[in-house]
C-alpha cells in the first residue's frame, strides 16, 4: 500500500526522520496479523437499501441476548437441554430503487473470541476441575424453522460447519437468484427478496432453537460462545 503525505519544508532533518519512523511503525502494526474473533463479512454489492430500511432484528424470548445452559443433574448430562424458540430473527429487506435484483443472504457465525482459546473449543470462563476433555464447539446444535420452510436447513438440527471459531450455518443463500416472496402465502424456495416479517412472517422470520447434549467426561466449568447472525447481500 502506498501513501502520500505532505512534508513540511519547515521540518528539520531530525524531525523528518522521526515522522517517517513513527509512520513505519504504525504501518507495520496495521499489517501485522492478529488472531481475531470471527465476524460478519462486509457486503460488496449494493442492490438493496441499507439500514434502517433493511435490517435484521433479534427478538430474545428470555434472558436478553444471553442463553444459559446449566447442567447440574446427571439426567441433564444424559438427556441434554433444549431451549426452544429462544431467538426469533425478523428480516426486513427494502429496495426503493425498484431494480428487482435485491437478494439477501442470512447466516450464523460462531465466535469463541479467538486466541488463546483453541480454535475448536468453547471459551472457558471458569474452571471447576482439571480432569476431562475441553468442550468442543460441535457440542452446540442449532435448529432454524419458519412456517414456509424457506431455509435449506429448515427443521433439522445443525452444528456449525466447520465446528470452529468462524464456523457458520447458512440459513438463506441462493447465490444472486432472487426468490420472490409469496403474496398472501409462501412463495416457495429460499425467499430472499424484498419483503418484511410484518407482511410475511412465515418467510421473513426465523425461529431458532438451541440444544446441548454433553454426556460425560468434559472438564467441569463455565463456558461461553458468541453467535452472530449476519444479513448481507454477499456471503
Amino acid at each position: 500500500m502506498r501513501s502520500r503525505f505532505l512534508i513540511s519544508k519547515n521540518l528539520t532533518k531530525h524531525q523528518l526522520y522521526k515522522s517517517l519512523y513513527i509512520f513505519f511503525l504504525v504501518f507495520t502494526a496495521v499489517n501485522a496479523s492478529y488472531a481475531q474473533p470471527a465476524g460478519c463479512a462486509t457486503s460488496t454489492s449494493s442492490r438493496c437499501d441499507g439500514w434502517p430500511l433493511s435490517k435484521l432484528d433479534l427478538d430474545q424470548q428470555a434472558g436478553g441476548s444471553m442463553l444459559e445452559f446449566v447442567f447440574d443433574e446427571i439426567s441433564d448430562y444424559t438427556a441434554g437441554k433444549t431451549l426452544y424458540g429462544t431467538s426469533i430473527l425478523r428480516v426486513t429487506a427494502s429496495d426503493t430503487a425498484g431494480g428487482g435484483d435485491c437478494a439477501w443472504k442470512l447466516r450464523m457465525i460462531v465466535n469463541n473470541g479467538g486466541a488463546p482459546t483453541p480454535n475448536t473449543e468453547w471459551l472457558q470462563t471458569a474452571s471447576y476441575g482439571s480432569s476431562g476433555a475441553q468442550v468442543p464447539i460441535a457440542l452446540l446444535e442449532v435448529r432454524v424453522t419458519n412456517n414456509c420452510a424457506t431455509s435449506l436447513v429448515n427443521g433439522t438440527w445443525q452444528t456449525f460447519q466447520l465446528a470452529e471459531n468462524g464456523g457458520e450455518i447458512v440459513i438463506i443463500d441462493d447465490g444472486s437468484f432472487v426468490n420472490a416472496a409469496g403474496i398472501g402465502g409462501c412463495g416457495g424456495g429460499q425467499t430472499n427478496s424484498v419483503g418484511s416479517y410484518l407482511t410475511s412472517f412465515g418467510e421473513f422470520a426465523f425461529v431458532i432453537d438451541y440444544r446441548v447434549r454433553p454426556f460425560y467426561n468434559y472438564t467441569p466449568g463455565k463456558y461461553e460462545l458468541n453467535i452472530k447472525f449476519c444479513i448481507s447481500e454477499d456471503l
Partner: protein
Amino acid sequence: MAGTSTFAQIQDEENVTVTMELVPILQLNMNTPDQVNFVFDEIAEYIGGITQYGATILTASSTVSWDLFASGTSGAHAAVPASRFWDAQVAYGAASGIVDLPLTALELHQFPGDINNGLANTGGDYAAQFTANPNPQAPTLGANNIYVSAASAYLAPPAVAAANNRYIAGGAAPLSFVEGGSYLTQTAVAVNGALNAYYFVIDYRIVPGLPAVFPFANTGAASEDLVTIGAAGDYAQPGVYTMNVKYLMIENQ
C-alpha cells in the same frame, strides 16, 4: 484521498451469547441396608466365619473420571489413626480377653472386579475369592482385607501402591480411573476387567477363628491376628463391636 461515492447495501448483525455451566457431579448410591450384622453364637460360625453375600450394592454416576474405594474405620481410628481397631461397645462376661480387634478382620469381595480404564492399580482390588480357611487354623495373608488408612484420616485414598491399598474401581495414579458415566445408561452389568463399571456388588466375610484371634486379619504384608500382634493365648473378648465402612467416590486425581 480521492472522493468515493457510497452505495446503500443491506448489512446488519445481531448477537447472542451462549453460556454453559458444567457442574461436576459424583453420585454414589447404596441400595441396601446401611447396617450389616455379624452374630457369632455357634461354634461352626467361629471356625468357618460368616459370609454375607450381596450385603451392599453400589451404583455410581459421575460426569467426570473417578475412583472408588472402601475405607475401614471406627471412632477409635478416626481419633487416632494408629488405633486400627473396632470400637468396643459392650463386653460380655469377665474382662479377660482382648478388646482391640483389628479393623482388617473384615474382608470384602467385589463383583465386577479389575475395573480400570487406565493403568492397573498395583494395590489391587477386592476381586479375589475369599481365601479358604486353613485347617489347622493359622495366620493367613489373604487378598480381601479392607483398606485401613495408616497415618491419616479415613478420607485419605490409598496412595501407596502396596497390598491392602485397594480400590474398588480406578486407582491411585491419575492414569488409573473410571470414565464418567452412569448405571442408568448401562445396558448390562460389566464383566470382570471391563474398562468402566457403575454397578458393584459387595460381599463381606469375618472369620473369628477358634480361639477367636481373627487369623485372616492382615495389613497385606504382615498378619494382624491377635496372637501375632499380642501374645500367645490372647483371644477376643466376647461382646459387641462396631466399625464403619466408608465408600468414597472421588474425582480422578
